[in-house]
């Protein structure tokens, strides 16, 4: 089960956050059926297997947080709680910066 399920409820309505499930090791059809039943509200990508090596994923679940500039901000294995905190802080920071720009 995707760990991000915990996160998606918090971020699914946020236009600044995109959640992508990277499916590894399942047949595409089987996975698609299962995924649609679950109605998680975000997309799962097929054949993420080939990215596993490149991202250095060694355990499941694992989560990678990428910033607006395309750089990795944080990674986690297992519970994504610390990652959730990091993302919340980032979003707050962005909102604050936006506010101060608007004021000018």
């Amino acid at each position, binding site marked *: 089960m995707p760990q991000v399920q915990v996160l998606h409820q918090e971020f699914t309505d946020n236009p*600044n956050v995109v959640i992508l499930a990277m499916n590894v090791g399942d047949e595409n059809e089987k996975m698609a059926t299962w995924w649609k039943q679950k109605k998680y509200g975000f997309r799962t990508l097929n054949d993420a297997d080939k990215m596993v090596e490149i991202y250095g994923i060694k355990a499941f679940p694992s989560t990678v947080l990428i910033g607006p*500039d395309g750089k990795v901000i944080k990674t986690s294995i297992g519970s994504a709680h610390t990652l959730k905190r990091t993302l919340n802080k980032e979003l707050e920071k962005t909102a604050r910066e936006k506010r101060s720009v608007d004021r000018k």
Partner: protein
Amino acid sequence: MKKTKSFLVAICLAVATASSTYAQAPDPIKSAKELLTPSANPVVNVGAIVQVDMDMMGSQDNEVKTVGMVVDPSGLTVVSRSALNPHGYEPRTVEVGPGMEMTIETEMTSVWLQLADGKRIDAEVVLTDPDLDLSFLRPIKPEDAKKLGLTPAQLKASADTASLLDTTIVLSRLGKDAGWAPAVRLERIAAVLETPWRSYAINAKPGETVFTAAGRVLGIVVVLPPSDGSKSQGSPMGGGAPMMAGGSTVVLPVSQFRGLIDQAKSKPSGEGKRMPKSKGAAKSKETVERISGATVGGSSAASNPLKGMLDKMIKPGTDAPTFSLLDEDGKQHSLGDYRGKYVLLDWWGIW
């Protein structure tokens, strides 16, 4: 005869004047009783919810209780920073098994001033000073300050020095079971310290307010930072905090943080670390989650599995490798499509 009488009266008058000018040492018990009245007592109970996040284990909410000194009619309250979060502020790594490490981070999700009638006044942290071990809190709603019913400490009349073995009055507050009642006791200055700053070692708890025997405010009790800078020792639940690491409690004289109070007063609301409204309070302890532990590619770092796995993952700060993959509906997604947004990649499998 007449002359003698008036001479005697003169002597009596002289003695009376002398005894009031050269008064005996002030009576600390009398002063202490006066300080306990609401119109003089600046000590308030303070509570906080600290969320402790542990990599690979989920998070847990802990309620923290301490006391602080009200320093301004706005309800501005100073507390010992380390007492407000005994779990430590800095992320730290502890060894949880042979060769296995875990990162622990904490976050204060709410903080409040606790009234004697059980009501809470939501507050926010407006200023902190890790070196002096101080944090300043202020009610989020300015009108709440009146509900406090406490008088700010008379800082203008503070006594900034004390001597070894001086009797001092320590004001505190008891816990919930005791109805948050004010409490007082006498303690003597055990040592006068000059480093890292002038302070007075005393047997007291962080956040308590200390007065001289004459009832003038001397300062607030804080925890001296450990001089060796040691951070990551002890148990996962609070070993890194100075208090747990055996830091000494000292009175920090008002003169050392008068400037900070002025700074804290002028901090506009919301620009400090704003606390979400006590959402953590109702949240139950989350169950401990563990990783499923499946490995990919057959490689396993036998002696140090988790750390080994984390080490191999892509490093923060590097460019995330791009990809272009189809989703469950056959729609294509590239990482590049999402420039300008935060992207969470969740690696999973149903198997």
